[in-house]
């Protein structure tokens, strides 16, 4: 696949999905009107915003509810795919994903603490801030517990993360099972992941984290490639391996924490989208990362659209859709001949 053309197609797909997402729902808004509303809010002085051709109810539905939700889906998809690609490069393990270091379990625990015990009991933190604080604290804890003589060995990090993740999940499960029945729905809602409660304000943290992470990987893409040939080889190629690994892990953890604290533990995207990108364009991170980021955004937008419409007016949790749609597609892709080149036959 030609990367610039593929990236351009994916970018167009993301924009189109944003508009479709903004137009679909109980309040009827044709896609053209949805596009005009979005442009009208972004570019001042558009005539159709004041000539009465658009209903304030439509404006409300598109700008206040649907667009933030679609943007959060896109940001979360892009962020999780990028964090997954980073993790897979750092620990050189195809099973690596954004949640492998216990970040999502910690965020879940933070959120559930607030839901179950109430905000006042957790230093007045909201669900989002408690989740983010717990995610960052967990990343620091993993790094501290996994380091030995000043180095962070990938295997040690994974095992530390998995162990801490189980610990956090145990706390979460205990809180969930002992709390009032009315809290359980909120807890499950968070743990399964959802973008439905998005506001323009809640988008800021994940979007900022995504931008920072994009800059970090853009600067270090060659180093990430070298890392794939082994630590010794990367050192010989002039890469500061220990420092690069640390920078990438911090980046991926913050990005994951920022996404999970707003959108909950949406599964499957961070594990599979980087693999799909690798099958399509190969292992060079300068090619893989743009495709993974745009592909993650498009995939989660599509998943959210399906989650809202398939069983309307009931919403299916987005994490169920990502797995139901994504797993068969991935299995099909994996069985194609070209997939062998992505290192799947080892």
């Amino acid at each position, binding site marked *: 696949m030609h990367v610039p053309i593929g990236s351009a197609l994916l970018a167009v797909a993301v924009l189109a999905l944003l508009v479709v997402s903004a137009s679909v729902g109980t309040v009827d808004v044709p896609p053209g009107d949805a596009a005009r509303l979005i442009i009208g809010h972004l570019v001042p002085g558009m005539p159709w915003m004041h000539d009465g051709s658009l209903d304030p109810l439509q404006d409300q539905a598109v700008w206040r509810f649907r667009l933030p939700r679609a943007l959060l889906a896109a940001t979360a998809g892009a962020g999780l795919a990028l964090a997954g690609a980073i993790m897979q490069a750092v620990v050189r393990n195809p099973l690596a994903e954004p949640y492998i270091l216990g970040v999502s379990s910690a965020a879940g625990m933070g959120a559930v603490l607030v839901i179950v015990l109430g905000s006042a009991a957790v230093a007045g933190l909201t669900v989002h801030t408690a989740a983010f604080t717990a995610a960052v604290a967990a990343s620091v804890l993993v790094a501290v517990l996994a380091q030995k003589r000043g180095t962070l060995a990938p295997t040690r990090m994974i095992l530390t993360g998995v162990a801490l993740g189980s610990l956090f999940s145990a706390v979460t499960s205990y809180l969930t099972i002992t709390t009032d029945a009315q809290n359980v729905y909120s807890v499950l809602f968070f743990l399964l992941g959802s973008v439905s409660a998005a506001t323009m304000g809640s988008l800021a943290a994940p979007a900022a984290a995504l931008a920072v992470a994009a800059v970090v990987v853009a*600067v270090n893409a060659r180093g990430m490639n*070298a890392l794939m040939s*082994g630590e010794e080889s990367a*050192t*010989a*190629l002039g890469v500061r391996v220990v420092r690069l690994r640390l920078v990438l892990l911090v980046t991926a953890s913050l990005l994951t924490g920022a996404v999970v604290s707003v959108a909950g533990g949406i599964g499957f995207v961070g594990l599979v989208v980087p693999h799909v990108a690798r099958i399509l364009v*190969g292992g060079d991170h300068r090619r893989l990362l743009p495709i993974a980021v745009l592909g993650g955004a498009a995939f989660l937008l599509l998943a959210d659209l399906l989650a809202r419409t398939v069983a309307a007016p009931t919403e299916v949790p987005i994490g169920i859709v990502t797995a139901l749609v994504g797993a068969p597609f991935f299995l099909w892709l994996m069985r194609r001949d070209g997939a062998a080149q992505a290192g799947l036959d*080892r």
Partner: protein
Amino acid sequence: MTVEFDGVGVRLGGTEVVRDVSFTVPRGSVVGLLGANGSGKSTLLRTLYGAVRPHAGEVRIDGVPVRRLRPRERARKVAVVLQDTAADADMTALEAVLLGRTPHGRGFGADRAEDLRAAHGALERVGAAEVAGRPLAALSGGFRQRVSLARAIAQDGEVLVLDEPTNHLDIEHQLELMHLVADLGRTTVAVLHDLNLAAAHCDTVAVLHRGGLAAAGPPRDVLTAAVVREVFAVDAITLTRPDTGAPVLAFDRAAHRTENDPAPHTERTPCDADSPPSPPSSPEPSSSPDAAPASPPRTAPPPRTR
């Protein structure tokens, strides 16, 4: 570029695995680093490409200590061929060779024309142009090693470091690789296991024994029966090739020694002594005169060019 090892000592996990090693690799010459398993050869090599830092002495490239060089700078001077690298990575041969351009580029940009030219040129040079687009995992050991060498060529360092480059190669590919290396004309340090390959293709050999330099000099002077017995614990006789006059070694297990062999084999050779072997520049062997027959010739290292 000249490479100097000056009193290099390396500790790994509290154990001194290399101690007080000094020798010089003159510009453009091929030096073979020999020694038994665990003698510190690879560790000494690693000091040259910055993977390990000596606790004593220093390694200099054209007079500049390696530790003073920034990693990218160092990688533009020293290219490394490791044992069968990157075979597990999901890369094509061309992508693997392009990794050699890592220290020459920055950021996200696509490979520049000069990077591609260097990579294709390097693949051509090692006779692997036809496998450029094939995944590394699908290549034979011979081709993989050629791709590794091509990466080092594309890296464009004047110093070439090879760690057991002929491992897993059949005899034809071993000879081919050594000729390729010699033809490159770079300042080369190669860890080799095959003493005959070293004797035939190296200008100088340096023999490590338990972390210390046991001998250094031209292969004919260094690879004597006494040195081989001490360092590798096998008996050897040196023959001379009638066509080229180059030395050829034949080996036998030390247990199979004949009775008229002058040196009785003992478990304790001079290098077992607690005192480290003296650097080769030392005029007096540190071992006792009684053990002299088994002690290696303290060949002077090649003249240092500063």
